[in-house]
């Protein structure tokens, strides 16, 4: 698979590392990773860099993942780029909110590399 430019948005640096490791185990060994510690940082980064895939936590201080997603769509940043939300929130209502805000995928924490592979790779291939 060609180099995939990926943005990981999470206020936890440890979770960013874990998500990156899971993506590499899922087959994206050669990806380029950009990291953001908040939704605001993520939006700033997307104004300067192009990416092919975005993974974002939901429960973050200052700007949560859903607001990040709404701003991303409203400002037409990264058009057509798949966004996958990664979160501890697991109810149908939370999934619905994420999809309505413009997410293409949803991964519940805790997760395995296999689950990341199943949810993320089809989105990259389809994009």
């Amino acid at each position: 698979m060609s180099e995939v430019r990926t943005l990981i948005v999470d206020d936890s640096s440890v979770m960013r590392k874990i998500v990156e490791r899971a993506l590499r185990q899922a087959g994206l060994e050669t990806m380029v990773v950009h990291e953001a510690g908040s939704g605001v940082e993520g939006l700033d980064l997307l104004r300067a860099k192009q990416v092919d895939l975005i993974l974002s936590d939901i429960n973050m201080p200052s700007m949560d993942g859903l607001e990040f997603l709404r701003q991303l769509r409203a400002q037409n940043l990264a058009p057509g780029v798949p966004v996958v939300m990664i979160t501890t929130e697991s109810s149908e209502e939370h999934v619905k909110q994420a999809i309505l805000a413009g997410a293409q995928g949803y991964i519940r924490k805790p997760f395995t590399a296999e689950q990341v592979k199943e949810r993320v790779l089809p989105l990259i291939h389809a994009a």
Partner: protein
Amino acid sequence: MPVSLRESLQLVSDPKNLDATVEEVFKMMLGIDCRRDSQPAVIEPDSVTAVVGFGGLLSGACLFKSGNHTAMKIAAQMTGMEFTEVDDTVKDGIGEICNMLAGAWKGKVPDLAANCGLSIPAVITGRDYNLHVQAPEFKLVHSYRFGDASFDVTIICDGLQ
């Protein structure tokens, strides 16, 4: 129709949910087989406690507490790094473990998953501190072990609608 958790109190407070949650989080995120221990966790004087609050139909908190040794061991497993002190990365990792425990625990009861929010994790380090909640609705305190490491997970419910 308004949802009430009071009718499902037995399900919400079922100790098996907490054990299944801890085993699942440690297996999936750390590759560690972790089991409930009948003996209390051995917590050194210097310890790490992470707290994630619940709000909504259930108010209370999920707490993770371990000695520094166990906290560093867990963070090492999460990151692939080695730690000699409880630095910001260790605290971040333990906060995330507590966040996943809280989320996965409430996810075991559908009405709770949909009607109970989680706070951002807070992490306390140091020695000689206690957390006290007056007359909780229910409280689960379980100890777990993997290898030579042990820790406590507590669910405190101080209000249920």
